[in-house]
């Protein structure tokens, strides 16, 4: 039997010691990561880490208590703490754990070759990235490659007992170019679950070098409403921080979303179709069940601009008197997925369904506008209203259908309801950009009309 499940069963047995305990849940997570990092054209460090942790949720009457622990030997202590907290907690009408359901088997999420990865393979990938970038033309270069093996197990006293193992190869590259006092940046991240679809680190190196050099020709942008082309990283940042939470049931139930009571209404342009791809092997945290053991599924959220569904976990589904969509995740707003956080309603992989436009077609369509590759500031957006302001980290000015240089300074102001309606072109499918945040959003290039830019 899976080791995590065995540990989980032993902890769950402690349940019998507490007469007033209504239900118990144990979540366990083990992540083994091998990392190599390159800085300034040289390998700098290698890491091998084993992150292990568990969490217990206990229901006493209608009170819910939670505790976490970083070592299996602390399991008994953790269950006692969770029970103590549950006894002190006020009753929750919606406290519930899932019962046993058939869980889909998502293929293609584990590769033994990644688990057994040779450090020489990781080194070669990093060196290819390094060699693709021209040292004479760049100021600096940084690259990080990781092989990750992640196992989780979820068990509860309702009979749920599932385990899953997945692998990831991830790569992040960053470079800087400098001319006088003008320092520019470019970055890219990519991941793959298997070595069968390897990451092209050479291509990443060439791509970011081109972006960094192009921005050395710095331009000023006018203050006016204009067309903006969003790169997938900008889609992830803006829509991930501000839009995705607006479809999560806990925000809907607490009226903290501009889309409350809008099911069936047109909230975006015809080009906008958003699906939460719960069963996608391409999700950063893939698998057949969510973090409380409910089966995942694909959920249509917006279809051709019409709002179809929100996303639910067990608790919010009970409150809304509907069924869970398998959208429970253990995240905090500023963290990766982590056992130390209680499960909350979260996206699995909210994806803009690809269109047919190429990036070149989008750029050609712009007489005067901005190509925003990576913004800063999206995290300060207001989920309740959808209002956000961002500034550029990597951005380009477009004039007469051509990129003419980089832009250092502007504020782009908008709100998500408005932005969805102004999407006029959706790009073709892109590679997996690293998505590690709670509100994961994936998407191709998007063309948005009439966006306010203060230059």
């Amino acid at each position: 039997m899976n080791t995590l499940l065995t540990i989980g069963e032993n902890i769950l047995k402690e349940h019998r010691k507490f007469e007033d305990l209504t239900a118990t849940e144990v979540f366990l997570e083990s992540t083994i990561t091998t990392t190599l990092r390159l800085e300034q054209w040289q390998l700098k460090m290698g890491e091998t880490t084993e992150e292990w942790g568990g969490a217990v949720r206990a229901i006493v009457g209608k009170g819910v208590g939670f505790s976490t622990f970083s070592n299996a030997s602390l399991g008994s202590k953790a269950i006692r703490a969770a029970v103590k907290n549950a006894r002190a907690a006020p009753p929750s009408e919606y406290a519930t754990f899932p019962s046993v359901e058939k869980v889909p088997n998502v293929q293609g999420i584990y590769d033994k070759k990644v688990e057994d990865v040779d450090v020489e393979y990781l080194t070669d990938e990093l060196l290819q990235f390094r060699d693709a970038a021209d040292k004479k033309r760049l100021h600096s270069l940084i690259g990080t490659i990781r092989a990750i093996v992640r196992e989780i197990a979820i068990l509860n006293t309702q009979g749920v007992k599932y385990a899953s193992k997945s692998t990831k190869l991830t790569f992040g590259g960053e470079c800087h170019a400098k001319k006088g006092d003008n320092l520019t940046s470019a970055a890219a991240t990519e991941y793959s679950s298997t070595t069968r679809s390897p990451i092209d680190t050479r291509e990443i190196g060439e791509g970011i070098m081109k972006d960094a050099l192009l921005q050395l020709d710095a331009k000023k942008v006018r203050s006016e409403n204009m067309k903006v082309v969003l790169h997938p990283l900008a889609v992830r940042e803006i829509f991930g921080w501000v839009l995705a939470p607006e479809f999560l049931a806990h925000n809907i139930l607490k009226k903290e979303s501009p889309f409350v009571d809008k099911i069936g209404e047109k909230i975006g342009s015809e080009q906008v179709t958003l699906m939460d791809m719960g069963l996608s092997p391409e999700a950063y945290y893939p698998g057949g069940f969510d973090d409380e053991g409910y089966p995942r599924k694909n959920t249509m959220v917006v279809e051709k601009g019409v709002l179809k569904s929100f996303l639910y976990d067990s608790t919010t589904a009970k409150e809304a008197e509907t069924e869970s969509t398998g959208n429970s995740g253990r995240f905090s707003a500023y963290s990766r997925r982590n056992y130390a956080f209680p499960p909350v309603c979260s996206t699995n992989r909210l994806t803009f369904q690809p269109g047919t436009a190429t990036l070149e077609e989008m750029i050609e369509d712009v007489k005067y506008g901005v190509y925003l590759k990576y913004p800063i500031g999206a995290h300060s957006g207001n989920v309740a209203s959808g209002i956000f302001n961002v500034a550029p980290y990597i951005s380009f000015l477009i004039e007469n259908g051509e990129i003419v240089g980089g832009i250092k300074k502007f504020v782009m102001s908008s709100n998500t309801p408005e932005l969805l309606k102004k999407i006029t072109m959706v790009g073709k499918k892109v590679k997996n950009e690293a998505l590690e945040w709670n509100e994961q959003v994936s998407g191709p290039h998007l063309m948005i009309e009439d966006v306010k830019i203060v230059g």
Partner: protein
Amino acid sequence: MEDSIENIIEAATKLGASYADLRFDKIYSTRIQVRNKEVTSFRTLFEQGSGLRVLVDGAWGFTMSSDLEKLASSVSKAVKLARQSASHRTERINVEEQRRFKSDVEWKQKKSHDTVGIEEKVKFALEVNKRPRDLSENIVMVDNVYFEEDMSRWFANSEGTFIKHSKPVTAATLRLVGKSGDLIVSRSRALGGLAGLEAIPFDKFLQITEEETRNIEDLLKAKPAPSGDLPAVLNYDLGYTLAHEAFGHLCEGDSILQGDSILEGKIGEQVASDLVTIIDDPTMKEATGIPAYGSYPFDDEGIKAAPTTLVKGGKLVSYLHGRETASKLGQKVTGNARVENYKRLPLVRMSNIYIKPSTFSEEELFEDIQNGVYLVDARGGQTTGQGTFHVGVQMVYLIKNGERGELRRGTAIAGRTLDTLKKIDAVGKKISYDIGGCGKGDPEQMVRCGSNGPPIRVSSITIGG
């Protein structure tokens, strides 16, 4: 445990490490989160584990485990990975030998966490959540957290330093969302410190809760903020955010080495107006005597904490350093290497960065502005090595003829850091203290930072509408 730690370090040196250090953490915390009457998280956390860093043949290796025995068995893997990196280096990483310390520091609680029962803390958290909704029908969401932590960290290195530091943390946070028609506004506040329950008098936090409810009511009646380039007074929180996000990150030695800072090579140059002095001080105490939120007695490389002046009279005089960056740049180590926990490697981080107060009263800051804005409280901030920044603003007041006027809704400021610092034409005399956090690195590491400083005035700043 002390013996196990020393044995692991010895094993690393025997395998060829020229330097090794180990951090062992033991953390116990309780967190109660209430969201619209519902306790959404009632967590007790037991966390312990250790991380070992080795320097072998001029490259780093690292391993980590929640189990000290497992860590001992993975020392050779860390050494092997360091050698793999070293075999592809032409230049060796060095750390110069530093003074060794044997120290056991405990920051005590005046009113310890266990003097108040868990039921009382739940009652407090529920009352904070209830109060705004009792006071205003326009409040649609109240999200508040009560948090307490007792943490001990052991640090040891191959040079013979062995430090134990224990500290308490207590904090309360509040986020309110108000709605009227289609208009939605929000406010966030926090109170806390590196202390016991004395850091958050429950009555005081309830007063803050009432104050913020009134702010929501006012914001719901307010018009949008103006946009464009305007003269502005930034309250202490925004002044701090400018010092930390827009400037402080650019001073971090690892950013300098990575070629990701416009301050590279600018020591001795004018980077701000001559009214500006910026200091990072991990020994800072608040007016109450409690250590400021980013304080520590030793950094996570065992270097004794001391204040570092970064900018003096507008001139850049120092960067912030850990041991590696100081060695590489031939500068003095400043004791700014920090880790979030045992799972991560040290990065160069700020502690309590602040703009040194000057002589201007609040009235004097306003009086020369004919048409400008008073910007109050940050909502997140971000910077780039290129020297651009973006900071969300929670509330805006118009300034007309030297007087604070009409309230406007939140907005954002953005711009080029050095341009903005050179436009500071007045610095307030009153310093305020607050709690904050900062994220950096991959994987991101969150560390506590003091959010302290005086209000400042800038002759012009870009405001997004």
